[in-house]
């Protein structure tokens, strides 16, 4: 079909044209907005710092959504899995300071994220309940749980209303490079390493092959002897575990405590990241960076009087334009 035809080009022009018109409507020239977007995300050392800080969780949650997507599953629940992972990681790190505590904290956060996704995987595999609904419900439960716990049992003694205590500095993830105000946390190399691990896992292992086969054509995979129910549960759990890990790393590397509003919607942006990534895990890398820059850039744009809703408009537009071009070739319905 016409994968690069006129239809898609018109769609892209109309979509971005609408955003440009909306900007003109509030008195901001689109080119000014674009240059502020670039300056605000990549213009100064501090902006680079913030962009990379945004990129890290997007990289890992993007990877999480990517894995599920390769198995034909939409993990809309990365947000909730990240929250639960961060919450559990904070609780463990608060109890056990130091290196051992940090390692345990990361493990606990990862397991918590995986367990949080497990019901969605099981319901999909054995009850045919759509994972989009279950993961969204699990997101809502996670958000309520997180706010409830931070307001109650996990509430810190600092007097600040809804946050936990700050974890001991001995369990923080160190910076690998520092040229103030620019800091490069160890979290980013770890995230990139994860991309490599997942890319190899998908390409070189039986489990990875089964996962992609199930996503590409479940009936054919089943005929070929793949236990697709097990693959579905496994894919969802791995996806959740990665999102939980993203939450744990977010705590240890950047936030150092947990509070209401901990995630600025990383789990939802992750869907855009995974869709942009295409067929290869390596695609998550540029996609996460693009969304990280976009997130930071749109924050700077708010100073110009552009509402924060612009990020949602851009996210939706980018997903639609890319999906029109690319995504339908990645996943084919039987």
């Amino acid at each position, binding site marked *: 079909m016409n994968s690069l035809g006129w239809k898609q080009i018109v769609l892209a022009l109309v979509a971005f044209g609408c955003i440009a018109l909306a900007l003109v409507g509030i008195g901001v020239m689109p080119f000014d907005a674009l240059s502020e977007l670039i300056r605000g995300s990549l213009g100064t050392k501090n902006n680079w710092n913030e962009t990379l800080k945004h990129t890290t969780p997007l990289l890992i949650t993007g990877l999480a959504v990517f894995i599920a997507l390769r198995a034909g599953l939409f993990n809309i629940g990365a947000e909730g899995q990240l929250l639960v992972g961060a919450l559990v990681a904070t609780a463990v790190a608060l109890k056990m300071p130091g290196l051992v505590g940090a390692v345990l904290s990361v493990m606990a956060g990862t397991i918590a994220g995986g367990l949080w996704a497990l019901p969605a995987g099981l319901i999909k595999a054995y009850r045919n309940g759509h994972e989009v609904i*279950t993961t969204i419900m699990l997101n809502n439960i996670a958000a309520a749980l997180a706010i409830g716990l931070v307001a109650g049992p996990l509430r810190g003694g600092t007097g600040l209303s809804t946050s936990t205590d700050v974890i001991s500095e001995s369990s923080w993830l160190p910076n690998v490079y520092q040229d103030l105000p620019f800091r490069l946390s160890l979290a980013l190399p770890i995230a990139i390493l994860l991309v490599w691990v997942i890319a190899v896992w998908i390409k070189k292992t039986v489990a990875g092959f089964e996962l992609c086969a199930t996503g590409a054509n479940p009936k054919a995979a089943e005929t070929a002897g793949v236990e697709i129910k097990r693959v579905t549960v496994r894919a969802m759990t791995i996806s959740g575990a990665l999102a939980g890990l993203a939450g744990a790393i977010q705590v240890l590397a950047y936030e150092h405590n947990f509070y209401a509003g901990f995630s600025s919607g990383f789990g939802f942006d992750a869907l855009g990241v995974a869709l942009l990534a295409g067929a290869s895990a390596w695609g998550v890398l540029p996609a996460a960076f693009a969304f990280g820059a976009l997130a930071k850039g749109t924050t700077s744009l708010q100073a110009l009087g552009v509402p924060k809703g612009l990020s949602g408009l851009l996210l*939706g537009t980018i997903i639609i334009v890319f999906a029109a071009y690319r995504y339908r070739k990645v996943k084919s319905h039987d």
Partner: protein
Amino acid sequence: MTEVEQLLINTIVLSAPLVLAALGGLISERSGVINIALEGVMLTAACITAIVGVATGSAVIGLAAGIGAGIVISLLHALFTQAFSIDHIVSGMAINALAIGGTNFMTKALSEHSQERVPVYPNWAYYTLALAATFWIGFYLKHTRGGLHLLAVGNDPDKSRQMGLDPIKVRYLALVGSGVLAGLAGVLIVSNAQSFSDQMTAGRGFIALAALILGGWRPWPALGACLLFGLFSALQLQMQGTRIMGADIPYDAWKALPYLVTIIALAGFLGRNRAPAGLGKP
């Protein structure tokens, strides 16, 4: 008013938008279009109703604008999924992101109106409408030519094409109907609050979808499932601050109750697949 009466009233107030949205989802999904975009349709309709209602001071123009916005967003979903063959879930999520961003953008750009109350019709009008729509859709799908065409397209687009139907056209029409109903759900939500606030639909489009699934994509069972969710949301409102077995349950933890019920219901009751066979197919 006794506690039980309060609970029943809250149940109706909370389930009515769910019923309207679930019926909107039903029409769309029975024609084969997975409709995660309900949430975005509701949110946009709520926002437009508030903006136009306040600007004109007229409830009827606000209502019409809200329904119109619902139709437009719903048709956008039809365009993306049918003309561009974009995966239905991807399109739905993108539309939700666009709706969240777009409504925020619009309300911030027009913030001088935000304090005024939105002119509205009384809620009972919407409750009557929700009941009537349930009845009518049940009848329409079973006993009219248009309804049977819709079901045929949703069950097997290829066969219906061989029979001389145009699945694409049927789906565009179905999404207009879906937009009207989901739009009404959004109008009702903003009528209750009498002003628009960011993301005020708060995921109710997804709960409506869950109710639709629990109801096996049939109107009356879906209405029953919506009432059930309404009941649990009402319970949640009344239970906040109550002590259970001597323990204070934090206020926010109760908010999880309706969602938890959804998960348990999907895990327990949905033993077999009753989804329209052509759901999500081109």
